[in-house]
């Protein structure tokens, strides 16, 4: 028989009147191949159906299930209990607005940053359905894809000291997202236009280079490389922290 696991889980439904934040303890017998997704589903189905948490893909691709597992930001679907001690503490990710229990509004955060930074392809060229596609070098496509692999799970933000003290900071995920468009030859924005959104304390100059982001990215994105790339591009275009037009 498997180990007897103890889960200490943060509970709070902010939109339901009359509830207070608290910790609640559950016990579960470990089964072969059990991950936190399976464990939470069982707890909800067998012990407390009011428990709120988010899973969609359960295969580390949708970014829904970020939470603090024994203090570290992790994807719950790809975290297996077998690699954890028999006492497991679960908290919602910090930084993001709490929806309830372990469920946070990462989607809202990323939507806001996408709008704030204009993180979509900017092109003035109309599409002609009969024309063949424009060519692109495969190396370039792969480089773009490498940055685009981010699943917006929020683990890097939860691990970033700067986001905690400066709520406007777009974090490594936000900078990486813009780097993706800077790499893309189809995007027509100039360095100056990128500078408008990146060249401030909320952008690249807010980063203190502490590496919490890359260490905690479940998709192993090369975040330091992307941050450095953006810094270099900004410097090459003549924009630096000194030239920062802060008001």
């Amino acid at each position: 028989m498997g180990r007897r696991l103890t889960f200490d889980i943060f509970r709070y439904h902010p939109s339901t009147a009359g509830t207070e934040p608290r910790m609640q303890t559950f016990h579960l017998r470990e089964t072969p191949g059990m991950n936190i997704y399976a464990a939470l589903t069982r707890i909800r189905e067998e012990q407390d159906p009011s428990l709120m948490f988010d899973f969609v893909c359960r295969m580390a691709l949708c970014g829904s299930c970020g939470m603090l597992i024994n203090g570290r930001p992790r994807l719950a679907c790809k975290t297996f209990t077998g690699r954890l001690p028999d006492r497991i503490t679960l908290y919602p990710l910090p930084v993001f607005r709490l929806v309830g229990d372990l469920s946070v509004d990462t989607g809202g955060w990323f939507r806001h940053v996408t709008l704030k930074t204009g993180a979509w392809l900017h092109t003035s060229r109309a599409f002609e359905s009969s024309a063949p596609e424009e060519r692109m070098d495969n190396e370039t496509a792969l480089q773009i894809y490498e940055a685009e692999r981010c699943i917006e799970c929020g683990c890097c933000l939860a691990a970033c000291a700067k986001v905690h003290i400066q709520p406007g900071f777009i974090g490594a995920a936000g900078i990486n997202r813009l780097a993706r468009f800077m790499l893309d030859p189809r995007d027509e924005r100039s360095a100056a236009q990128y500078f408008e959104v990146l060249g401030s304390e909320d952008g690249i100059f807010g980063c203190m280079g502490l590496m919490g982001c890359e260490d905690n990215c479940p998709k192993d994105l090369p975040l330091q490389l992307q941050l450095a790339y953006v810094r270099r591009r900004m410097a090459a275009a003549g924009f630096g922290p000194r030239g920062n037009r802060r008001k």
Partner: protein
Amino acid sequence: MSAGRTHITDVLVLGAGLAGERTAIEAAARGLEVVILSLVPPRRSHSTVAQGGLQAALGNSVMSQGDSPDLHFADTVMGADWGCDQHVVRLFVNTAPAAVRQMARWGVPWSRITAGERRLPDLTVVEEPEAAAGLINAKKFGGTTKWRTCYAADGTGHALQYALDGMVLSLGITVHDRTEAVALIRDGEKCLGAVARCLRTGELRAYLAKAVVIATGGCGRLYGLSTNSVINEGTGLSLALDTGLACLGNMEAVQFHPQTLPPTWIPVSEGGGYLLDRNLDYFMPHYQPENNKQPYRDVTARLMQERIRAGLGVESPHGPHLWLDVRHLGAEHIARQLRSLAAFCRDFAGIDPARELIPVRSVQHYVMGGVRTNIDGAAYGLKGLFAVGEAACWDLHGFNRLGGNSLAETIVAGMAVGKKAAEFALGEALHYSSALVAQHLAAQEDRVRRLIAGQNGGENVYALKKQMGQILTEHTGIFRTGSGLKTAVAALGELHQRAQRVGLVSSGRGADPELGAAMRLPGMVRLALCIACGALARTESRGTHYREDYPNRDDVNWLNRTLAYWPPGAEKPVLKYEPVRITELTPGKRATPA
């Protein structure tokens, strides 16, 4: 709980996967106001997980040379085992190349052709000419005569969804995420909107629109074992069914993915691997004497299941499985070309595929059935209602979908249906009576109130759901028989009664997840009954629908589509049939392409 606000818009799209967002963009581009509802933020939709790729006959690469929409047409119709509507297939194959190129304009980093030597998964080497360099590349998927699957590295769905969501944001389309449509607002003949429940607060709201589009994806999670995202519970389908006016097409047509990884059932595509049984015997050639490495999915899944039934599966705590062997490809090839397969094996099974065998088994993967529509995406029976994507039975896939045709369908049908829904909305004035809206809201409030008060009974929602999943997996799986299906129909009928008597364990207040599950369950059981009843009635084998007691395709009696209706208060669906439309390719032998 208070009746919340009412939102009014031109086009209301239920679902923010690829199909929903592509439809919304098309309507918004015509100057209409569009609101999208989604259970989750759009970028977390099920579409995001599709890694393989998308079919479009671009004919760019060496292995694609000579490809054309005509070949794509023939492959799709044969794949469908002639169960599809051919005028829809024609529209689809002709539009797919432009749809792919348009996604490049919107930012998808499609993998491109590099001139020079190219090493294929079977380790042969081909030479790509200089003239093709930089064009969109293609790879091989099962069931296609030419290499036609366009891909963005190993994250095609992700790249498409992020590009489309960027467009949605840039166009200022309103998205209400964490919002679940729970009923359609309609009068006797027209759909006027939807009642929705806020998954943050539990509040009920009304959304009114001139055109309503169901883009809620598939219902794989009716089954106990599925590759699908856990939110794929088919609520959009049951919303339509519950009107008693709209109908579902071909619900018995369910696809099983041959190779998924226990116990998470994540698909691991073979990419040049061998399937082995417990004796490490490479068994596919016994069944497929000619060199057909990638037969149709339904064929592979049946062969695997037969092997397991013959006692040649490997026992495990998660049931019997077979092995997938990719070791001969070498560590370097696996790390480079099969990156996500390697990651899944490592992260979800603790396996290094370069050194170890991968356990695999077939589970539910895709539903060909859905809300029956015409070629414009307009639902049968209810004006102003449209459906698109996996939630629809537009009928591109018939009884077996080709890999890669679903992602392609989402964007092609999104264009086509979005345009038609927009045209409909432009020609329509919004007439509704506030009494009608209040009545629909009150009906849902009443459901919630009764559940919270425990007035219906004390059945446990999760226990019933589990039973439903087991019944479907056991009797409506890869192999079906008359007696098994009768058992399933009876058991599901009983479950349908019990599903009306659910009582909550929790308080049901606010955004309580158990309340949501309890509201969904009766509709889900009705969908399960549509699958089982349709399968029991169809006394032939076609594509994925395989009846052991009727192993042959029967074009004389069954070259048709099942339509399932659910009259108000009924205990079972009413089944009707309509012929499939054949315009170009008359039914013939379904050859497995090499």
